[in-house]
């Protein structure tokens, strides 16, 4: 067979050979094109994701507010008990002073819808903090309610017929009148970071979620970091190679691939139902996240320990150190940068984890940041889930903004990890 092949002369310059070559090269280019298409698709989808989040989310970083003079007359607010005053009336009066022509009660109610429902409590708190204003006027900046915030930011279009939007033509006219007097401004929305959740989008913020996530991550770190390092040192340096250690290793690898929601079921059945720990607590959330991060932590630490060259170990042992001394004094310090990098990446994964936290109830509606590890709280990803479920228009941009905040934290943590890796990690 080979003889016959060798004996027939192939005419490389013939038309048939050339067309065969063209076909083969075309197939090659086609494969290359598929690759380019696939990569562009992946990058394009990531780009679309980021663009859609930024384009809806940037609006929530500013908040439309209106500055009004609130007449704190003694008729409504008793100087002896400033907390008990009729602040609804104060708010009404402040708006009526701006619009004396609005007289009928239904119209006045419509007028009142312009500013946030909680304005009365804000005025109350300001008066309680400074009772000297009673009898005079108080100048205060309060957020406008969500529909007008959306109107001001252009999400609610004025061109839509009146029946299809949540603000009437009359209300728009009042709002424009307020705007013309210079009372309306859109400053940076610090409340997004410093106030807790609320039913009203214009007031809802992330502070409760950020504090809750911080506590949960703290617990996760405190538990998984030492346990992970200790387990990795044992498995890598001390454990005899036998059936038990094989079992532990297979086990760790499998745990790393168990769906996160199963850890939520574990937390619900064991921590909440069996041990009776409180629902929604960052402590329980942190414990569940710690169990989830532990396999990652062990795998990363083992890799870092393995990377320390044997010469270091032999030198230490040769100088008469015990194995514990060799590891504690020499190997572990050298492996630490790698371990820290892996830890931060593991914690970043834990920060974005949602499903197990839902099952232990960290998706409750809570209007104040948690004061301790056992108090009910939300976390950043669960807060995103809650807001994404809310029907109000304003929560769409809040959700995107919350996602941008979460991604910001993740980028920060990964940047620290990359920095640590480049600065401290050494290759041998």
């Amino acid at each position: 067979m080979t003889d016959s092949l060798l004996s027939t002369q192939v005419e490389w310059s013939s038309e048939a050979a050339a067309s065969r070559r063209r076909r083969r090269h075309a197939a090659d280019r086609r494969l290359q094109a598929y690759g380019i298409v696939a990569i562009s698709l992946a990058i394009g989808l990531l780009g679309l994701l980021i663009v859609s989040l930024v384009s809806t989310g940037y609006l929530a970083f500013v908040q439309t507010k209106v500055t009004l003079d609130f007449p704190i007359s003694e008729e409504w607010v008793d100087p002896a008990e400033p907390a008990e005053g009729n602040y609804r009336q104060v708010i009404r009066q402040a708006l009526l002073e701006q619009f004396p022509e609005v007289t009928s009660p239904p119209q006045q109610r419509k007028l009142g819808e312009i500013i946030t429902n909680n304005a009365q409590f804000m005025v109350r708190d300001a008066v309680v903090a400074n009772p000297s204003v009673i009898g005079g006027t108080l100048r205060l900046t309060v957020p406008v309610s969500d529909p007008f915030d959306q109107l001001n930011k252009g999400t609610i279009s004025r061109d839509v017929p009146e029946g299809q939007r949540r603000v009437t033509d009359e209300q728009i006219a009042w709002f424009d009148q307020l705007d013309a007097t210079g009372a309306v401004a859109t400053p940076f929305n610090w409340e997004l970071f410093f106030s807790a959740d609320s039913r009203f989008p214009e007031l809802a913020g992330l502070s409760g979620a950020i504090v809750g996530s911080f506590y949960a991550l703290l617990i996760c770190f405190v538990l998984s970091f030492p346990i992970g390092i200790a387990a990795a040192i044992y498995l890598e340096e001390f454990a005899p190679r036998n059936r038990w250690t094989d079992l532990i290793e297979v086990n760790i690898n499998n745990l790393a691939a168990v769906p996160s929601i199963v850890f939520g079921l574990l937390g619900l059945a064991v921590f909440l139902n069996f041990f009776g720990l409180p629902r929604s607590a960052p402590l329980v959330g942190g414990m569940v996240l710690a169990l989830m991060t532990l396999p990652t932590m062990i795998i990363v630490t083992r890799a870092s320990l393995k990377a320390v060259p044997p010469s270091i170990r032999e030198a230490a042992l040769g100088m008469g150190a015990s194995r514990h001394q060799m590891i504690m004094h020499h190997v572990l310090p050298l492996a630490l940068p790698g371990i820290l990098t892996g830890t931060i990446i593991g914690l970043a994964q834990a920060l974005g984890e949602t499903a197990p936290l839902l099952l232990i109830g960290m998706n409750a509606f809570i209007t104040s940041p948690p004061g301790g590890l056992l108090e009910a709280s939300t976390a950043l990803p669960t807060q995103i889930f809650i807001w994404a479920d809310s029907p109000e228009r304003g929560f769409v941009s809040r959700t995107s903004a919350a996602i941008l905040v979460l991604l910001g934290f993740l980028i920060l943590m990964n940047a620290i990890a990359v920095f640590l890796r480049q600065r401290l990690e050494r290759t041998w």
Partner: protein
Amino acid sequence: MLGYTLLLIVAFSLVAYWVGKASGRRFAAAGGKVHSLPVYHGAFVAVWVGIPAFVLVLLWVAMQGTVIDSLVIASLPDSMTEGASEGQIQLWLSEIRNVASGRLFSEPPPEIVAAAEHLTSWQRIAGIAMVVVALALMIIALGVARSRLAARFRARNRFEQVLTGLMVFCSLVAILTTVGIIASLLYEAWAFFQLVPITEFLFGLRWEPQIAIRSDQVAGEGAFGAIPVFTGTILIATIAMVVATPIGIFTAIYLVEYASDRVRAVVKPVMEILAGVPTVVFGFFAILVVAPAIRSAGGLVGIGVSPNSAMAAGAVMGIMIIPFISSLSDDALKAVPRSMRDGSLALGATAGETMVRVLLPAALPGIVGGVLLGVSRAIGETMIVVMAAGLIASLTFNPIDSVTTVTVQIVTLLIGDTEFDSPKTLAAFALGLVLFISTLALNVLALRIVRKYREQYE
């Protein structure tokens, strides 16, 4: 109280360390041969003071609640406890706890107020007793451990033994977690199969789990046939893999065979970013962009697409899995020995022919393993489907209909009221068990395929 006790233990351990170290120094100063450094004398005493006390406090806290509860129940007058059901007693207990912590809703009966006072005083006594017992234990331990110190005492070896023991315990935590998962899933699922036969669960065609937990709720009859849930999961996972597999594999092919270093330096970090995006973000992306887009595309050609169609959830899940498949395929392709690639190129094959005829067949087991791991992720993925897929279990394979998945059902069944004697709550654990077993089987299968392939070349 617990926090202060733990602080006390830490402080006392430090004192113990210092005491032990001082003794060690004295041995050294006295001349003669000393076995261990003073540090190890200190550490030996400290671990024997700190660890037993810490374990004691943990056990104490774990037991305290049950003991006090039974004391409180015993303190209730016989007229209340006699013949009362378990649920009634639990109700009283929670009322007593509420009264004790000052949350009064109405005028409680005098027995409850008295019991609440008992509860408060017992809790105080228990707290003080815990501190006293822990302190006593630490003082005794300090005395015993310190009396054992001597110049020839092997303090370092003893301390290192304790350290090794701690490490062994820490590596057992991973085993304990698995045992905990399996035990809790099996236990609750077994309770579920007492209420609903396992054959009905596995082969039933109707899934309507929203039954009443309390008697005053209005809800359906309830049916627990999980086939529609399984088919929904399979449908969404299939859509996800149809999206992710070609994009992931072609990305890997391009990166391995064609890409210049500069392209690789851009594409790899982008893929890492895509892999690091939390799933809740993908879920919001699905409801914000992808589902409306698919709906309006369907509208253009005159097909009515459900607002939470399987297509939208599956496609977004596919995007999530792309980096996973591409990095595993990349690894598998790179692991093919260079000689095979060079041999093919030397025979005159184009880069594409080398890839399709040589590298891909050689790397196929690794790629298949990666795809299987991707399937296991798609089945276990929760947030995207919770946000973008439906809640109603319908038995259909139509990708533009709304279907539900195992993970969605687990979350919806467990958000809100959970009662561990209602089939509604327990059904979630039965689904969890199915999920755990199927993902575990896929993972084991994938790892086995990958390992078998590796043996060929090493």
